[in-house]
Structure formats: structure tokens, C-alpha cells
């Protein structure tokens, strides 16, 4: 493999993303509306509980977590399932399959540029604003470094989940239902919509070993230094778990895709 190829694809992805300035602005705006909703919802939840601390989290903790989770979600979000099903229907997938690179690797690096743009345009500004507003609630130190590392792993886990579902759609030839199921599962079990701390004990036990947590909950926990992530003894198992899922899902995804691609019949042409 040649790094020049990856760099070229990343660069093109950045250039393409920057073409869609309006899209980014709309994303930021719709986020504001979503976050207002989150704010009032949790305000009501805390008010009705009559306590300041629920499951070890104050209202402020919850808001910081959910705002950053939303920003992270926008940064990591991919549309591989849609894009791939569209390119199967139009038959365009054959052009990507005929690039002198493995299709999965080609796809991953094609998306990388968009992630870089989203990181600087949505995640970083949100993070800075949260830091300023909360005045020291987020520790700024070596945790940022581990957060970046953890986010890269999260990106690969997320890519693999997307790719597995997209591959599944190669067989079913229908996308919508499967994709909705995937989105709901990821949103719920990864901690993006509800912090995992609020889950009942048994469910939390199951969720904590599933790969979805590795996408959003672990990077955020590391960034916010919760659950012992401020110590190496707490941090390393989290990164280790992400790494495990990276390895497992990459191998599984490769096997599954190689099997699927042999079966596909590219439409028309």
C-alpha cells in the first residue's frame, strides 16, 4: 500500500467537502435546535427527579456530555450505506471496484477528507465554546491527546459498522429499513442520545461490551476523564477495548465483503 494514494484521497475529500459550505451551515443550525431540545428535555428530567445529581451526573455534566456527543456524532457520521446502495443501483460501483485498491480501503480514505473538515468546522468550535462556557469543567491536558487517539479508533469502528451494514444491503438489495435499524441501535447504544450512565445496571453491562460504545461513549469518557479515565489503569482498558473491536470488525468486515462482492451482480450497463 502506498501512502500517496491515501493522502490524495484525503485531499480530494477535503476539497469536495469545502464545496458544500451551505450544507455545513445548515448542519450547525439544526444542531442548535436539537441541542435546545436536549437542554429543555433534561432540565425537565432533573426537575422531576428532585435531585441535583442523578446516577452520579449533575445537570451540567449531562449537558456537556450530550453537547459534545452531538458534535462528535456530526464529525464521525458517515453515509456509506446510502452512498453504496445508490452506487449499486446506478451501477457506478463497478468504477470504484475497478480502482487499483481494495474497495474497503478506497472507501475509507475517500471519506477521510470529510472527517478532517468536520473535525475543524463542527467539533472543534463546539468544544471551544463548551470549554469557555463551563470555565474549567473540562480538563485540558494529556487527555486531549488520548481523546484524539481514541477518536481515530472510534472512526475505524464506526466505518466498519457502516461497511458491514452496507455489505448486508448487497444481499437484501433494500437499504432503507436496515439502515434505520442500524441508526437507531447506534444512537441508543453508543451513548449519543442518552448517556450510558442512565441505563439500568444489567443493560449497561451488556452495552459496555458491545462495539457501539467504542464509537462515542469511550472517546467522550476519556475526554471528560470520567470512570477512572484520568488514570492509566482506567484509560488503557478503554483504548484496549476499542482496539479489540477495530481488529475484530476489520477482519469480519473484510471476510464478509470479499464473500459478498463475489455474489454481486452489478446492474445494467
Amino acid at each position, binding site marked *: 500500500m*502506498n501512502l*500517496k*494514494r491515501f*493522502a*490524495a*484521497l484525503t*485531499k*480530494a475529500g477535503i*476539497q*469536495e467537502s469545502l*464545496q*458544500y459550505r451551505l450544507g455545513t451551515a445548515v448542519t450547525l443550525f439544526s444542531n442548535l435546535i436539537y441541542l435546545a431540545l436536549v437542554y429543555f428535555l433534561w432540565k425537565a428530567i432533573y426537575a422531576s427527579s428532585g435531585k441535583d445529581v442523578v446516577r452520579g451526573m449533575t445537570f451540567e455534566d449531562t449537558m456537556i456530555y450530550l453537547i459534545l456527543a452531538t458534535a462528535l456524532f456530526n464529525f464521525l457520521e458517515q453515509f456509506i450505506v446510502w452512498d453504496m446502495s445508490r452506487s449499486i443501483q*446506478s*451501477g*457506478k460501483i*463497478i*468504477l470504484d*471496484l*475497478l*480502482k*487499483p*485498491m*481494495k474497495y474497503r480501503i478506497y472507501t475509507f480514505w475517500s471519506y477521510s477528507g470529510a472527517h478532517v473538515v468536520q473535525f475543524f468546522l463542527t467539533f472543534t468550535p463546539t468544544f471551544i465554546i463548551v470549554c469557555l462556557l463551563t470555565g474549567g469543567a473540562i480538563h485540558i491536558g494529556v487527555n486531549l491527546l488520548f481523546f484524539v487517539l481514541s477518536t481515530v479508533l472510534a472512526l475505524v469502528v464506526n466505518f466498519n459498522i457502516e461497511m458491514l451494514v452496507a455489505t448486508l444491503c448487497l444481499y437484501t438489495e433494500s437499504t432503507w429499513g436496515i439502515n434505520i435499524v442500524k441508526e437507531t441501535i447506534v444512537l441508543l447504544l453508543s451513548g449519543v442520545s442518552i448517556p450510558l450512565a442512565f441505563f439500568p445496571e444489567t443493560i449497561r453491562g451488556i452495552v459496555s461490551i458491545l462495539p457501539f460504545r467504542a464509537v462515542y461513549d469511550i472517546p467522550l469518557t476519556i475526554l471528560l476523564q470520567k470512570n477512572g479515565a484520568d488514570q492509566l489503569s482506567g484509560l488503557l482498558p478503554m483504548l484496549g477495548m476499542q482496539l479489540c473491536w477495530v481488529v475484530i470488525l476489520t477482519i469480519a468486515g473484510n471476510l464478509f465483503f470479499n464473500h459478498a462482492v*463475489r455474489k454481486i*451482480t*452489478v446492474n*445494467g*450497463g
Partner: protein
Amino acid sequence: MSKQASNEPAIVMEHVSKNFKVLNRREGLSGSIKDLFSRDYKTLQAVSDVSLTVGRGEIIGYLGPNGAGKSTTIKMITGVLEPSEGKIMVNGVVPYQNRTRNSEQIGVVFGQRSQLWWSLPLIESFNLLRDIYLVEEKEYKDMLELYRSLVDLEPILHKPVRQMSLGQRTLSDILAAFLHNPAIVFLDEPTIGLDVAMKSKIRDLILGLNAQKKTTVILTTHDMGDVDALCKRVVIIDKGKKIYDNDMDHLKTFFGSYRTLRMRLDGEDEWTERVIDENKTDVMKEIEKTQKEHKIKDIQVQEISTEEIIKKIYEG
């Protein structure tokens, strides 16, 4: 590229077949529900026992009616599909066993789809393809120089692909396919939807690139103008079987006794056309017969066109 290295043929196919398993679909809603659990498959043979050898630098027309198995063949040669039976070698590589390696030595253009980056200027797509195919800087520069000598590159080079006309986009896609100097280029309906002037521009470009780079070109098309302008040899398949494989000239002699008789009758502006097999009917008799009923203003007798020949072959 190992393009010039050997004298082997560019493509060798030996007794290649491809079967697809398709579910037998039933009618109606209840049928659709039953289909969910059905294991009632039938086998479709898209390509059956096709053998084909294509030499280096050849331009061949690969023709056949819709659904004849043309794209299935192309997909097998490019390595996207694995043949059910038979062997394929493309420039010394077994394509379906080594798709990535095979991709480096082929280029593709599908008239209906573009491999260019939609929102970026053409030059960015070229630069990207240069990096993806690991083209040396010097070869890349030479290739762009060659392109400049063949077409007017400047007006489109800095234009985003989404703002291009269909003709400009097709032209760009053909240039993109040749950029890494592949041994073989597949052109699937490259002139579809283009105006006459653009068609001839595209044909000249393909001839120019083929002459300069000795690239083997496999052309599938329904436009006989493309075939006349580009191909010395045509291969025709129908229902998965190869039914013709020979020179264009031979194609004409094969149907040499056919003539197209064109007549303009009195009171009509349009020409009336009739294809006549001279072994069966005499052209003069046909004219006499017509003359008894109508007054003929004008007569032309032409050699049968490629279009008519192909139609005859398709119809069996």
C-alpha cells in the same frame, strides 16, 4: 507497465461461461410473500462457451443486442465477476483472482456513468488518478502533453465536472481512462447521447490514443457509426453465444449480395428504403413492380450499411 514487454495477446478467453442463479418470482402479493421462503431457483446462462483472443493494439467492436451478455463478458474480463467455467487471461493476469493487479492495467469508460470527482475541476481528478495509479510525474506530464495535441484541453481542465456538458464529460472520462497508460481500455457506449460533431471528435480521440499508445480497445456500442469509424474487427454475441468474429470487410462480403434500394415516389418527400437480397430478388424487378403502381422520381442503389448487416445478424 508491461504493455510493450511481450508479444502475447492482450486478452485470451477460453470456453468461458457464466451462469446466474435467479429466484423464480411468483405473481401477486401472495406470490411475493411465498417468494420470501422460496428456494426455487433457475439458472440463467448469460455467457456460454465464448472463446476470444484479442491482440495488442487492436480495436474490436463487441456487439450484440440488449441482454446478449456483453456487459457480463466485460465484467469477467475486468475481474468484477468470476466465470463459472473457462479461463481468462488479461495481459498475463487472471483478472478475478487478482482484481487489484488487473485494475492497474485496464481503463474503463461507461457512457452513462462518470468516474470523475463530481464537484472538483477536471485537473484535480487527473491529479488524483495519477496518485491512485501511481503514475510517474514524467509519464503524467507526457500524457497531458499528448492530450493537448489531440483535443482542446484548456477550456475543460479547470472546469468542475458537474458544470460540463455531456460531451465534455465523456471526453474527460475517456482521457481519465487512458491516463495511467493501460494496456486495455473498455469503452461502453462512449458516444451515447452525443451530437454528431462531438461523436466524431470522440472517435478521432480514441483513434489518436490507440495509434499513439498502442492501447487495445474493446468497444461495446449500439451506434454503428462508432463501429465503422473505429473497428477493423467485430465480435457479435447473441443469447450468450459468439455468433460472429471476423473483419469488418468480411462482414460486408458476407452480406455482399444485399443492396439497399432507395426510391422517391411521386408526391412524396421521403425516401422509401428496401433491403434486397440479390440472390433471391432482382433489383430491377423490384423497380418494375413499383413503377407499375407509382411514378418514381428518383432512385438510389446502395451497398448495405453496417447497421443493416448487424440488424440482419441479430434477427438471425
